[in-house]
Every structure is written in structure tokens, then in C-alpha cells.
């Protein structure tokens, strides 16, 4: 229902809404003018985390990082680039073997694309840079989890003197993409009056056009100003046409797929980062004939579908965790894991959203011991506001001045409030494809997607710090479970970094939510003991793929 219709139907709304409008417009104006810069706080480092020696030169005052220095020197960043080069070479070899059946051809093509750094505007980062296989296809750079909420620097360095951050960087912690293809296209379930499916933390990869939300998601980062920053979807195809696997793309999607007549300035435009002032806001600055534009658009869809095929492949989403083998009767959970599982589906109520395919063990439950689903996804694909505090360490809050391209990523600076699905519904990325969804903003703002718990525990090595949740505020599974357990027990009216004396942030103090509206109270006071929290963490370890029975 449009606002006009709403107000005509319910005239009582007028007075209330107009009063609220007047009051809040004034308040918001004052607030917008008085937004302070992000606080500079010297947070303590997570227990057990040590700054790698090669990173010590990259640490700036105020718990900040020289991002260009991290990209060049950090051991995890170096490891990831080496891994992706190796995987890219393996996939290239496989693509040229002539032995792949059609099923594996499209998966391999997706693998080639996902590990190819040349598809970014500066030919320097691949999708996998932010989605490390060794970290469950989430952020694989430990020091970023500690200093930037897990958000990753993108393709474009910022060279403005004294700028912080000195590289464009994403506004959120990258979501792992294993099992992402099992999320259906975003839809509003009428009988449940709830959104299901979609990809991205805020559901904006609806999959409405390709009918594949994971493929729709794969079209996002290549064009995101903060990530791979291509200025035009056709630039991705242009770069793909220059790759060593261009003929393989045509083998999969048809001869002539890449036969596009590129304009003389294609290299100039395709090396200009998205958002640059010179592009004047044009989302398709490459001048192509109508026929070539249509072909490039078709190619961009197929490019994304191949990535989705890889994400759904046995390499990424194989259902080979210890828990899967437990369901198959080929593995036995330890006592602690079993206790954690019983808490997961009982006292902790975790499986209310992280569906395990079985019944509850809480009072009155009737678990027969038989799995209702033999490949449970550990998500219901819905959206919730968990009441996470604002992560003041996100460099995004400082990206409020123009870079050398005349682009300002976050004009609101520290005043930016991440409304999650509310941003998408409210038009932050443009109008939602289903215009009726906009009216659902009131009950969905502040909500973020329930990620699968599968592979949440996967880390590249012992001692690795992994960032959790959309803003990476939590940096261990213990913290995650403790937050669910005690959010409302240790609630304080403070911003992160300002917990009262005598408390410890994330242990005995939880700052206020970034967005208090629609805060879910299913969680917040679960009554788990510290040992029970540990047991749930032990169970979560059984959801990591690659178990050998």
C-alpha cells in the first residue's frame, strides 16, 4: 500500500504522522549537523591475538590500520593471494583438459571467475580476497577481524594525503557464501507474513531476474564502489574477454557470447573506479550498440550463474560436516558436542532460526531421534534484528570525505545507521524490484539475514580471529553465544568503547543496539551457564565441512 493510499484509508494517521514528521525532521536535522566523528578508542586486543611482525608497521594510532600496508604485508593477505593463484591455475588446467562434462564445466568456469583478480577495476582483487575458502568463504584476514570488523579493503587505494582509511573498504563484514545457493529468491511469505530467502546481509540480492539469489549476489561486488569497483557491468565482460578462459566461457555459454565491439575508450573507462565524478553517475558509461549492450547484459547474468554453480558445488557446499555424518549414522558426537546439540535445540533455542531439521528437546518436545531433513541448512533464511551494538571500528564511518576520484562513500560518516533490510526496502540501493515491499519497512528495518551456522567455525589456523555478524562486532563463537545468552542481562546505555568501570565490554557489558527498532527478544537472556555456552560452541565445530568419518 502506498503512503497516499495508507493515509486516505486511515486518516487518523495524518495527524500522528505529521506531528512525528515535524518533530523528527527538526531532531534529525539537528542530529545530522551535530554528528561527531568516530571516536578514537584504543580497544584491547582479543585474547590470544598477536599482531604479526610484518603488520607492526601498518598499525596507526587509535586502533586503526594503514590498509595499503596490510594488503601488501599481512601474512593472511599474502596467503589468500597465493591460494587463489593456485586454485585459479588448477581450474584453468581443468578447463583445458577437455575432460569436463557440462555439469563440471559451468562449476569450473565459476571457479575461474571467483579466483580471478583481473576482474576488478585495478586488476588486483578477486572475489576470494574477501571470501577465503580457508575461512568458510568469509573474511580470511585475522587482523581485519580485530581492527575493521572484518570488512575488507577493495580494489581502489585512496591517495588523498592523510586520508583515513587509505583504501576504499566495504561497509560490512563479508558474509560467507557456502550454501548461499540454497537460499531461494527473496519473497514475502503471505501466510507467515515474513521475508524468506535472498542473499546479502540485507537481502538486496533478491534473485528476481535470474531466479537465483546467489547469482544475483555475485553481480554485486564486481560493481560495488567499495569492492571490485567496475564502473559498468560490461567492463566485467570486457575483462573476462581478455582472460585466459574466455574461450571456455564461450564453450559453456555459446560461441559468439563475447563477440562485442568495444569502443575505443574501453580501457580508459574500465580502469576508472565506479563512483568517480568523471562518470557523472552513469551506471553504463561504456557506449555500446543496443545489440552489444544486450549481449553484455546476458553475459553478465551468465557470468553470475557460473559463480553460483561453483558456490553450490561440492567444493563449497558439500554437506560433509561431522554433523552430516552423524545424521547418516557414520559418526558419533562427543559428550560435549551432544550436550551442545541438546542445548542448541533446547534451552538455547538456536534451532528456532538455525533450523537443524529435527525436533526440540525442550519440555514437551517429541524428538524421535530421526532427522526430518537430512541436509538441514541451519538457517530459516529469514531476517532478524539481534540488537547488535554499533561497531565503531568500521572504517566505513570515516569514509565521509571525497577520495581522489571525487567520490564520497559515506557522506553521513558516523551518523550512518545500518538499517539492514531497511536500507534495501527504503531505497538506499534504488527502489526494490517489488515496489509493494517498501511498505514493509516499519517491521523489517534493523533486520539482517540469518546466516547458516554451517562453516561458521571454520578458520585457516589456530589463533585466527574471525569476525561474526554483519558488522563484525563479535570476534569469536564464544562471544556470539555469550551475546545471545546475556545481551539483556548486561545491557548498558553506552556506545561501544564506553562501558562503565568494573565491567568488560562483550563479557559483562553490552552497549546499546545500533538500531533498537524490531529488536528480537527471543534471545537476550537464555540462562546458559558458561560451560553450556562452551558446549554450544563445541557443537558448532561439528558443522564444519571436510570431516573424515
Amino acid at each position, binding site marked *: 500500500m502506498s*503512503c497516499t493510499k495508507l493515509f486516505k484509508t*486511515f486518516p*487518523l*494517521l495524518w495527524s*500522528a*504522522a505529521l506531528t*512525528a*514528521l515535524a*518533530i*523528527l*525532521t527538526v*531532531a*534529525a*536535522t539537528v*542530529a*545530522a549537523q551535530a554528528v561527531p566523528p568516530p571516536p578514537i578508542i584504543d580497544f584491547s586486543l582479543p585474547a590470544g591475538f598477536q599482531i604479526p611482525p610484518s603488520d607492526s608497521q601498518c598499525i596507526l594510532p587509535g586502533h586503526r590500520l594503514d590498509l595499503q600496508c596490510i594488503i601488501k604485508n599481512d601474512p593472511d593477505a599474502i596467503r589468500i593471494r597465493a591460494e587463489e593463484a593456485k586454485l585459479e591455475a588448477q581450474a584453468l588446467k581443468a578447463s583445458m583438459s577437455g575432460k569436463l562434462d557440462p555439469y563440471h564445466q559451468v562449476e569450473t568456469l565459476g571457479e575461474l571467475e571467483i579466483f580471478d583478480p583481473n576482474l576488478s577495476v585495478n586488476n588486483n582483487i578477486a572475489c576470494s580476497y574477501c571470501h577465503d575458502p580457508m575461512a568458510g568463504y568469509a573474511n580470511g584476514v585475522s587482523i581485519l577481524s580485530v581492527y575493521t570488523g572484518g570488512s575488507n579493503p577493495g580494489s581502489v587505494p585512496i591517495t588523498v594525503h592523510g586520508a583515513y582509511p587509505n583504501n576504499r573498504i566495504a561497509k560490512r563484514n563479508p558474509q560467507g557464501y557456502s550454501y548461499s545457493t540454497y537460499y531461494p529468491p527473496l519473497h514475502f511469505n503471505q501466510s*507467515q*507474513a*515474513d521475508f524468506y530467502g535472498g542473499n546479502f546481509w540485507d537481502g538486496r540480492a533478491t534473485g528476481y531476474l535470474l531466479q537465483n539469489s546467489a547469482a544475483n549476489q555475485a553481480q554485486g561486488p564486481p560493481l560495488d564502489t567499495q569492492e571490485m569497483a567496475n564502473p559498468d557491468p560490461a567492463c566485467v565482460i570486457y575483462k573476462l574477454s581478455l582472460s585466459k578462459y574466455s574461450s571456455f566461457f564461450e564453450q559453456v555459454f555459446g560461441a559468439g557470447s563475447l563477440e562485442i565491439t568495444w569502443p575505443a575508450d574501453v580501457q580508459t573507462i574500465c580502469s576508472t573506479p565506479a563512483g568517480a565524478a568523471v562518470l557523472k553517475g552513469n551506471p553504463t558509461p561504456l557506449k555500446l550498440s543496443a545489440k552489444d549492450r544486450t549481449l553484455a547484459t546476458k553475459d553478465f547474468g551468465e557470468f553470475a550463474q557460473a559463480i553460483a554453480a561453483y558456490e553450490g558445488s561440492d567444493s563449497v557446499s558439500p554437506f560433509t560436516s561431522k554433523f552430516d555424518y552423524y545424521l547418516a549414522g557414520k559418526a558419533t558426537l562427543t559428550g560435549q558436542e551432544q550436550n551442545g546439540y541438546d542445548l542448541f*535445540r533446547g534451552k538455547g*533455542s538456536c534451532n*528456532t*532460526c538455525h533450523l537443524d531439521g529435527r*525436533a*526440540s528437546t*525442550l*519440555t*514437551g*518436545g517429541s*524428538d524421535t531421534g530421526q532427522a526430518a531433513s537430512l541436509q538441514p541448512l541451519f538457517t*530459516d533464511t529469514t531476517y*532478524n*534484528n539481534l540488537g547488535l551494538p554499533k561497531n565503531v571500528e568500521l572504517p566505513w564511518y570515516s569514509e565521509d570525505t571525497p577520495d581522489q576520484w571525487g567520490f564520497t562513500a559515506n*557522506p*553521513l560518516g558516523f*551518523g*550512518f*545507521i545500518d*538499517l539492514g533490510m531497511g*536500507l534495501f526496502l*527504503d531505497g538506499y540501493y534504488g527502489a526494490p524490484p517489488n515496489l509493494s515491499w517498501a511498505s514493509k*519497512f*516499519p*517491521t523489517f*528495518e534493523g533486520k539482517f539475514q540469518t546466516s547458516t551456522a554451517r562453516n561458521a567455525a571454520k578458520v585457516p589456523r589456530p589463533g585466527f580471529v574471525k569476525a561474526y555478524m554483519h558488522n563484525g562486532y563479535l570476534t569469536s563463537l564464544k562471544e556470539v553465544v555469550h551475546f545471545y545468552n546475556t545481551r*539483556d*542481562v*548486561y*545491557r548498558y*546505555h553506552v556506545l561501544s568503547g564506553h562501558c*562503565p568501570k568494573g*565491567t568488560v565490554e562483550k563479557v*559483562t557489558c553490552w552497549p546499546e543496539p545500533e538500531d*533498537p*527498532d524490531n*529488536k*528480537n*527478544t*527471543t534471545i537476550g*537472556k537464555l540462562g546458559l551457564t558458561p560451560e553450556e555456552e562452551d558446549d554450544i560452541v563445541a557443537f558448532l565445530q561439528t558443522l564444519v565441512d571436510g570431516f573424515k568419518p
Partner: protein
Amino acid sequence: MTRAMRSRVMIAVSVTAMTLLFLQPRLALAGEGSRPTSVNVSPTLESAADTFAYIRWTTRNPRGTILHYGIVHYGTDPSHMDWMAVSPNRINLAHSDEVFRVSMDDLQPDTTYYYTISSTQADGTPDPVTSAVQQFKTRSTNEASAGR
């Protein structure tokens, strides 16, 4: 108008809309016929600080949609409990009983509040649950700490 400003405005409109459009008409309609007999529950004060409090109650699993809204109607006068706090709660179909919790924010310190509870499904259909009027008092500001 910036996005943040528009968002703030939308929040205000949304709260009003949710109250008048979404919940109240449904509640009114439900009184016209098929509504099952309400079960009286005994909500309790889970915790209170100076400006916020949590109310909780346990009831038979109301079923229906997975997403429910716990609702607390409250005020400083037991005959005028005109304010409303609404919190999303998700139910687990495998549970025989469900705990509802509602977060009450923006309260005044050192003040006595009176309240009753209710809940609805995600589409506004009311659950058959009511309570007698209860009361609690917020802490004074100088003794405020975490809501325990």
C-alpha cells in the same frame, strides 16, 4: 532530506502505522466472533533499570506464524495504560510452551508503571492470552546499572 533523516521519519510513521493500521483493527475484528477463549497468564518483571525494563511470560505455544509480537500495554496510571511496547519473538513449533519477552525502552527513572500483556501473530492475528494489571518501578538514575 538525507536517507538517515528519511529513515527517522519513517520510523515514527511506522510505529504509528503499526499501532493503528496493523494491530488495532485486527484486535477489534478478533473480538467479533471466532476468537478462542483467552488464557490468563502471569507476566513477571524480568529486570528493570532506570530507563528500560523487560517483561516476560510463559504461555502455551500459540502456533500460527513463526514470527510473533509480544506486546505490553503500559502507563503510569492503571486506568490509562495507553503506551505500547512491541517486541518480535520467534516461536519454535516443537515447543509445547513459549516464553515471550518484551523490551520496554524510554522509561522514566524512579517511576511506577502499570501494565498488561498480549501477543499477536506476524499478520496481526491476536493470540488468546491476557493478563491482570501488574506493576513495577524503575530504578532511580543514580542507582542505575545493567538491567538485572
